[in-house]
């Protein structure tokens, strides 16, 4: 089951560049939350702070607290531990090119030491079903490389790979921006299915996408969280003038 995420006074830097400035918000469990804003506004950095990926960058630095469920992930957890509980899907599909479809999905468990073949078989099938990819690949699970699939299939494979380790939260950093409309629709359907079981945070450039999949939406601008509210409120009756300008296309 998903858990709530509570962020307070989060700051992030790339070198001397203050990318996120004092962000505080509460992301509810088992809902989809969309983050929108122009390029470079810090929304990707924000999700990368939620699973401590930001600090893998040698010049990245973070302050503030992020609570995932009961755990303060910066004070009480290791990066490896927290990333097992929080799955991430990236902008460009990134299956492991030398691995088969099966091995890609099983990789998260295998690389953490699980070896039981029966359990792995079950997890791979369940994850691919959840990611709506099972029917398309079930005949060449071990024959084909993950890289041989189409872009949309690769992205669903990456979602299956993230689901296989049974996370509580799914972070999606523009998961459909490199995909065609049909594949995008499939990913959106998927998010709709998944949000009953996982807390989903999705970064998107596509405002219709935010409106379609998310209950709550946050608007980022220049490293600050301008407004965070129910999606329908953000899109119909925003409080802040800058949010209104952005969603009506006056800038960005």
């Amino acid at each position, binding site marked *: 089951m998903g858990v709530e995420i509570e962020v307070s006074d989060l700051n992030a830097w790339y070198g001397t560049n203050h990318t996120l400035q004092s962000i505080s918000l509460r992301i509810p469990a088992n809902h989809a939350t969309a983050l929108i804003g122009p390029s470079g506004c810090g929304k990707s950095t924000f999700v990368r702070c939620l*699973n401590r*990926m930001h600090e*893998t960058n040698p010049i990245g630095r973070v302050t503030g607290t992020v609570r995932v469920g009961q755990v303060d992930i910066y004070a009480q957890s290791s990066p*490896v531990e927290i990333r097992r*509980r929080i799955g991430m899907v990236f902008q460009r599909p990134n299956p492991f090119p*030398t691995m088969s479809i099966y091995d890609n999905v099983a*990789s998260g468990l295998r690389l953490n030491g699980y070896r039981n073949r029966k359990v792995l078989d079950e997890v791979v099938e369940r994850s691919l079903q959840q990611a709506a990819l099972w029917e398309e690949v079930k005949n060449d699970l071990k024959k*084909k490389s993950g890289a041989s699939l189409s872009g949309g299939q690769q992205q669903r494979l990456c979602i299956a790979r993230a689901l296989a380790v049974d996370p509580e939260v799914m972070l999606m950093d523009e998961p459909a921006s490199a995909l065609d409309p049909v594949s995008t629709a499939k990913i959106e359907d998927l998010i709709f299915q998944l949000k009953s079981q996982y807390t989903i945070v999705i970064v998107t450039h596509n405002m219709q996408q935010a409106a379609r999949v998310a209950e709550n939406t946050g608007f980022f601008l220049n490293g600050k969280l301008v407004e965070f509210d129910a999606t329908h409120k953000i899109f119909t009756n925003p409080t802040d003038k800058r949010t209104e300008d952005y969603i009506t296309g006056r800038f960005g």
Partner: protein
Amino acid sequence: MASNIVMPPLRARASNRLWRVFANHLATTAAVGSTILVMVPLIAIFGYLIYKGASSLNLAFFTQIPKPVGEAGGGMANSILGSGILLAIASLMGVPIGIAGGIYVAEFGRNKRLANMVRFTADVLNGVPSIVMGIAVYTLIVVPQKHFSALAGGVALGIMMIPTITRTTEEMLLMVPLNVREAALGLGVPNWRSVLSITLRTASPGVITGCMLAFARVAGETAPLLFTAFGNQFWSSSVNEPIAALPLQIFVYAISPYDEWHRLAWGGALVLIVLIVVSVALVRYVAGRGVLKGAS
């Protein structure tokens, strides 16, 4: 407005077209010509070796040890075995150290002084003349042990393999895209595990090529063996005794005044090249068997 911009006419003039066709053929000819130039030395050497050496190859060549001067026949069986043992020692030493060094430089030592030193040392080591490597190992192993040995020869060759393997491993690892590394880290895989199971595995075709390059290079080395493995006219498979090696035996036979030995030297050279080609091809075949459909 776009309608105000006047585009220049795209119509190609006749002279222009002729020039493009000509330039196209020129570039193709240059590329094909260069390819032939690259292949000519290899084919010429191989052809000449077959011409000179094939006649001295018979069963005895692969089963007997050298005969004393004046007696006809004899073979290089002990040298073939010796080269095999020397290369096995060299690979056991050079491949793991070389790959581990490359992993350190590429993955753990970014912007660290030690990594820069390793890189610099590897480049210098690559440029050290092979005879110097022989003398160095002579001082380090042969002198304290007070005898020549297969071990010393293998170590000399192994040291020569390290820099090539380290540098190619580093370059191949750096070519693995960041998003593949992030995928592994995002799954909660510890960094060391991600480096070994994902990054190194993704880079493995290139890393294997680097190892094979280093292997093929030292397989034909003579100079570092002169003061270390020394050579041996008899059967020996002990790592603690002087051992025969194909390049050494070829050297000894080639500078001798006897026609019979010259013939054997040609045969040995042919066998050496064929063995290198076969072992490289074999490793490539074995390594390539696991590759999946559509893997990049």
